[in-house]
C-alpha cells in the first residue's frame, strides 16, 4: 500500500526542511520526500495543498491514568485523544495505581498500547518506589522493560541525596530524570500562584520560589553528577534564567513548557473556575512572557501538554477540593500555533522542532522526523483554520480545560501513524472500541 501526500508545505526540523514537497509512504515508512513524485498504480493520494506536513507530534508529558484510574482516562481514550491532537508518540507518567515503579506495570502499559494500536506509547518509570521519595525504584528493570525516562512527576523528590543518587545511577542507561520541581514546604497547601490573585481571592498561594529553589537544586546536582536532567513544566521567569545559565555552563539539562503556562496567566483564577487549577499554577504575565522567550532562544527545548484528565465530579467542586490538572492532548497544537506561531514569537521550524525532534532526542525515541526510512508518523495541519475549543467533543475522558470556548487558529486535519490514518476516524468505531 502506497500513499502520496501531495503538495503540502513539509516542515521537518530534523532535516531542516521547509518547502512544498510530496511525501511518499510505502509499507508504513517514509520512502521519499521530493517535488512532483510520480504517481504509480495502487497509490492513495492525499491532497495536502494549503496544509503543513510535519512529523507526527511527540508529547513527552501525559497522564494516561491506566492502570487504576480508568474513570479519568484509559490507555485507549488517551491514545485516541493523542491521535486527534496530531500526537503519534507520547510518554506517560508513572503516577498510576499501582505506580509504574516495576516492570510488570511498564509491560502492562506497553501491552495495552499495542492492543489499542493507535499511537506510540513510551512509559516513564518512577524515580522512587511508590513515588514516596524514600528509596530508588529498580530503574534498570524498568529500563529493560521499555521505559524511556524516570520521574516522580506529580510529586517532587524532596530528598536531595536521593535525587543525587538517582541522577548518578541513571547514567547507566543514558536516560533522563524528569523533575517536577516543587518544594513542598514552600508550596504548603497552596492552590494558585502566590501574588496579587492569591491576595485578592484569599486562595492559598504557591510562591514562584517553591519551583525555583528546586530547579536550582536539581541543576546543581546535575552539574555535580553529570547526570541527565529534564525539567518538567517550567513556569517561572527565574526558572528560565536558571536553566539558561546552566546550559551555558554545559550542564546536561533539557526543559519543557506547557501550552497553558505560555498562554494563560493567574488572572483567569479570579472567577474560581477549578479548570484553572494546575500544578505548577498559572503564573504572572511576566512569567508567561519569560517562558515564551525561553522557548524562542532554545532554553526550553520541548512543548509538552502535561495532559492530566480528571472526572467532571472531581473538578466540579470548591477550588481547594478540586484536583490539580488540565487536559491538553487535543489542544496542544492549536494553542501552540495560536500563541507562539501566529504571534510571531516562534517560526514554524522552531515550533515544530519543540513538538517533534527535540522531545525525540531527549527520550531517545525513534520518531519525530520525516527522514527516508523512518516510520511514517505524520501530522497534517491547517495553520489558518479557526476553531472553537469544545471540550464535550474530546476523545479524552477529561473535560477539564480552561481553553473550552476559546477561539484558536490552526488545527490538526489528519494524523498518520506508521502510514495508517488514525485521525480522523469513524466516530461509531471510536465509541465502541474505547469507552
Amino acid at each position, binding site marked *: 500500500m502506497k500513499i502520496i501526500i501531495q503538495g503540502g508545505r513539509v516542515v521537518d526540523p530534523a532535516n531542516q526542511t521547509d518547502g512544498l514537497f510530496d511525501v511518499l509512504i510505502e509499507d508504513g515508512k517514509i520512502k521519499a520526500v521530493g517535488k512532483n513524485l510520480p504517481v504509480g498504480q495502487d497509490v492513495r493520494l492525499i491532497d495536502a495543498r494549503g496544509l503543513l506536513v510535519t512529523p507526527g507530534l511527540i508529547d513527552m508529558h501525559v497522564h494516561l491514568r491506566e492502570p487504576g484510574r480508568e474513570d479519568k482516562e484509559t490507555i485507549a481514550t488517551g491514545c485516541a485523544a493523542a491521535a486527534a491532537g496530531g500526537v503519534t508518540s507520547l510518554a506517560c507518567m508513572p503516577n498510576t495505581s499501582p505506580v509504574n515503579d516495576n516492570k510488570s506495570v511498564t509491560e502492562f502499559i506497553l501491552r495495552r498500547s499495542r492492543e489499542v494500536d493507535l499511537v506510540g506509547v513510551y512509559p516513564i518509570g518512577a524515580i522512587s518506589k511508590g513515588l514516596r521519595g524514600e528509596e530508588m525504584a529498580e530503574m534498570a528493570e524498568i529500563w529493560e522493560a521499555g521505559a524511556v525516562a524516570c520521574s516522580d512527576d506529580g510529586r517532587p523528590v524532596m530528598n536531595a541525596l536521593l535525587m543525587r543518587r538517582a541522577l548518578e545511577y541513571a547514567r547507566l542507561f543514558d536516560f533522563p530524570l524528569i523533575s517536577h520541581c516543587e518544594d513542598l514546604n514552600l508550596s*504548603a497547601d497552596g492552590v494558585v500562584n*502566590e*501574588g*496579587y490573585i*492569591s*491576595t*485578592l*481571592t*484569599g*486562595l*492559598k*498561594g504557591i510562591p514562584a520560589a517553591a519551583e525555583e529553589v528546586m530547579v536550582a537544586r536539581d541543576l546543581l546536582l546535575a552539574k555535580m553528577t553529570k547526570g541527565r536532567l529534564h525539567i518538567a513544566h517550567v513556569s517561572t521567569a527565574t526558572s528560565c534564567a536558571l536553566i539558561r545559565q546552566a546550559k551555558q555552563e554545559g550542564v546536561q539539562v533539557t526543559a519543557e513548557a506547557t501550552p497553558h503556562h505560555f498562554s494563560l496567566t493567574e488572572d483567569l483564577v479570579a*472567577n*474560581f473556575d477549578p479548570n484553572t487549577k494546575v500544578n505548577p499554577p498559572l503564573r504572572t504575565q511576566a512569567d508567561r512572557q519569560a517562558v515564551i522567550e525561553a522557548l524562542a532562544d532554545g532554553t526550553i527545548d520541548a512543548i509538552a501538554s502535561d495532559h492530566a484528565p480528571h472526572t467532571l*465530579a472531581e473538578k*466540579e*467542586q*470548591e*477550588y*481547594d*477540593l478540586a484536583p490539580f490538572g488540565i487536559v491538553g492532548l487535543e489542544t496542544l497544537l492549536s494553542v501552540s500555533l495560536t500563541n507562539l506561531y501566529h504571534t510571531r514569537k516562534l517560526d514554524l521550524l522552531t515550533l515544530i522542532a519543540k513538538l517533534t525532534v527535540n522531545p525525540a532526542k531527549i527520550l531517545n525515541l525513534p520518531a519525530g522526523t520525516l527522514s527516508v526510512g523512518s516510520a511514517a508518523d505524520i501530522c497534517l495541519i491547517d495553520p489558518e483554520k479557526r476553531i472553537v475549543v469544545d471540550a464535550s467533543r474530546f476523545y479524552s475522558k477529561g473535560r477539564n480545560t480552561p481553553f473550552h470556548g476559546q477561539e484558536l487558529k490552526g488545527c490538526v486535519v489528519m494524523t498518520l501513524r506508521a502510514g495508517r490514518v488514525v485521525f480522523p476516524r469513524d466516530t461509531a468505531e471510536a465509541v465502541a472500541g474505547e469507552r
Partner: protein
Amino acid sequence: MFKRKDLLGIQELSREEICFILDTAESFKEVLTRPIKKVPTLRGKTVINLFHEPSTRTRVSFEIAGKRLSADTINISPSASSLTKGESLKDMAKTLEAMNPDIIVIRHPIPGAPHFLAQKAKFAVINAGDGAHEHPTQALLDLLTIREHKGKIEGLKVAIVGDIIHSRVARSDIFALVKMGAAVKVVGPPTLIPPLIEKLGVVVEYNLERGIADCDVIILLRIQLERQNRLFFPSIREYSRLYGLTLAKLSKAQKDVLIMHPGPINRGIEIDPQVADAPFSLILDQVTNGLAVRMALLYLILGGES
C-alpha cells in the same frame, strides 16, 4: 438601588450600592428598638443558613434578622448535614433547590464556594464568609458603625491590624473602605501581610505604633492561636507584645479614635481588656448593626420589589 440576585462580595459592589444598603440598614435599626421587633415583610419566604464552619454571631445574626422579617429560617451545620456523608456541594445545592428556598446564607472555609453555589442554583446566595476571601456583611456593618459615629467615611484614616493574610474581614473591609474614600493602612508582622496588597489601595505598616498614629478608626483582627504552628510568628506571647493593643499604645492615635473588632476577641492577646471595654470600643455596636445590615440585605434581595 440594589438589583443583584446574590451578595457574594464587596469587590463587585459600587459605591452607590453600598450607600443604598447602609441607608436601608439605618431604617431597619428603628424596627429593632420597637417593643414588638417583628415586621411581616418576608412572610412566606425561606432563608437557609448553611454554615460549614463554626459561627455564633454571624449565624445567630442572620437567623434573628430573618425572623424579625417573618421569614422562615432554617439552620444547617455540617455535622448534622449530608455533607458528612460525602455529598458534594453541587448535589447539596440541587437538593436544597428542589425544596425551593429563597435565600441560602453560606459560610464556607474555601474561597469561592458561595460563587460556586450561586452558579449552580436558582436561589439567591449571601456570602457569610468564604475562607480568607470575603465577608461582605461584616464590612457593611463596619461601614455602618463608622458612619454612625463619625458621620462620614470619606477622608477617615483607618488601620486594620493583625492577621491580614488569613482574614476575609480584612479583604472585605479594604474593598469597602477604599471604595468609600477612606485612607487604609494594614498593620501586622510581614508574615501575615499578603503580597502585593498595596495594589488594593492600602499602605502597609509593620510597626503598630506607627501604624495607628493619627488614625480615626482601628479595626483589630482576631489572631488565630494555631497560626504559630505554621511558622507565621514565634509565639502568642511575642505577637501580643508587638501587636496587642493597649491603652498606652493607643495614645499615638487620634483623641477620638474608635476601636472595632469583628469578634470573637482574644482578651489580653490582640486587645487589652481595658481597650475592649472602653467607651470608645464599638465591638457591641458592631453586633447590633450586623442585625440591621442583614435585615436590609434579606429585604433588598427578597422583598425589595414588593
